């Protein structure tokens, strides 16, 4: 990219959750639901004398994208690591449930989830986990009618139970800066030791779980630059394409056949994963 293009670029990553949601929806169409002024904050953080946030780290934005009714669920990575608690989780699940209801009533409504999340908020443990199960249920329901598209841009990444939710989306859009995985490197290192995963080896983390690798290995669909217009254009194209013929999460036969070729005696390199999935997931 030349300097002029760089200067013209409108970074998506530098925006906060609300700014990201607004930038994706058609100009002037965004309306926020259960916004900060409704003051539904986490009862559990307050009980533990931890700082709450008036939107609990999730923005529900309704509007249109490319003229189509769309709800954007944007997770604010800057609040509690984008963790899912009861309130934020209910905002995402509840909005997806209403979008599915609209589709059943003949009103096509689609959804975008901006995943910047470490997964369950441990201070709300079991209620966070339950909310994630409900988000997953709602994604599977809604994706039957209209695509549910996940975007992970950076800088938090998409981890924990929410990475499973991302795996249920119709399509995934990632930047190079994004990381997508179930267990964070630090957790793996704690559980399994340094030899299993060196959480300080940032090159290794991006090589195995970064956006470029996830798209190359078909665990995600579109790689975009950190550019708001590119993210928006990718979403427009994917929504116009409609739901995929088969969702990635339904491809158990292809994945099991691929995994049968994995040499499990040694730790894989990024290239090994590409070799296995480039063949198996065409």
């Amino acid at each position: 990219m030349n300097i002029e293009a760089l200067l013209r670029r409108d970074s998506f990553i530098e925006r906060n959750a609300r700014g990201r949601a607004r930038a994706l929806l058609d100009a002037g169409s965004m309306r926020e639901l259960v916004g900060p002024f409704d003051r539904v904050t986490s009862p559990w953080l307050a009980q533990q004398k931890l700082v709450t946030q008036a939107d609990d780290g999730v923005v529900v934005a309704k509007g249109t994208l490319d003229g189509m009714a769309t709800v954007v669920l944007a997770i604010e990575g800057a609040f509690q690591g984008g963790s899912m608690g009861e309130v934020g989780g209910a905002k995402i699940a509840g909005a997806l449930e209403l979008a599915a209801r609209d589709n059943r009533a003949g009103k096509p409504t689609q959804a975008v989830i901006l995943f910047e999340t470490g997964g369950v908020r441990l201070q709300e443990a079991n209620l966070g986990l339950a909310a994630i199960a409900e988000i997953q249920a709602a994604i599977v329901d809604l994706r039957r009618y209209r695509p549910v598209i996940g975007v992970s841009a950076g800088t938090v990444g998409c981890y924990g139970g929410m990475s499973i939710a991302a795996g249920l989306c119709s399509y995934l859009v990632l930047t190079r800066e994004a990381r997508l995985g179930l267990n964070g490197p630090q957790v793996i290192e704690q559980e399994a030791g340094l030899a299993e995963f060196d959480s300080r080896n940032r090159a290794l983390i991006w090589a195995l779980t970064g956006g470029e690798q996830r798209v190359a290995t078909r665990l995600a669909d579109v790689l975009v630059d950190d550019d708001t217009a590119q993210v928006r254009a990718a979403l427009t194209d994917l929504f116009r394409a409609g739901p995929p013929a088969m969702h990635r999460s339904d491809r158990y036969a292809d994945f099991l056949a691929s995994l049968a070729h994995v040499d499990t005696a040694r730790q894989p390199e990024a290239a090994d994963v590409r070799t296995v999935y480039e063949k198996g997931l065409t």
Partner: protein
Amino acid sequence: MSIRSNGATWLGELTGGAPALHAWSAVRVANGELAGAPARFIAVVQDPGNQFPRARNGEVGLVEGWQLAQAVHETMHEDRDARTRRPIVAVIDVTSQAYGRREEAFGIHQALAGAAGAYAEARLAGHPVIGLIVGLAMSGAFLAHGYQANRLIALADPGVMVHAMGKASAARITLRSVEALEALAQSVPPMAYDIHSYASLGLLWKVLAPSSAAEPTRDDVALVRATLEEALADIAPNEARDLSSRFGGEHRAASRRVRELLREQWNA
């Protein structure tokens, strides 16, 4: 090799020791009966010889996630043209998801999405899905195996635990000692590890008190079987196939409030 785990024990008891439908080592799928009609039972058991070394103690790993997906999809496929959809019982005793570099590299999140998605699709397609928690129901593994059920039933037993993360790990990550975490859990129900605190969240349809979860008596098995059949009857044929039956718990006021506001504001 016979593996003793609560999951393996209950799968055997509830299916009368029916042979496994697949030659898989960690995911066991078997036919059984409920209320006089066929039902499918699925459990994840330990696999000391698992070729993925991080998935040998009952964890749900890459292969297990996709096998669970296959088992559920097969059930759906077989019943596609049937008048009634067979019940699927997830017998839940899962240590955790597999933590490892191989797992992350090959996308364990996607494998678990395969399993969670399959259960959700089965529920939406009209299969009554019941989750029976007979041991550990931890974190991502529970999301993959059981958390999408129409009804959840748990045994009250010291070996039965539902949680987002094991105690030791949760303590490390929240920078607390295990003792401090336990003390905090006393007053914060969603953080607690015991089954009764979990029940107060409204996520369980029933809590049963058998004499033992690990070595069930004939009466214990009869109690569980009767409760599974009651759950089946409770999942009325025309009822919504979503998870809304879980929203009523005494400690879920905020979840209800959020949904109420969303409904009010959705079309405003």
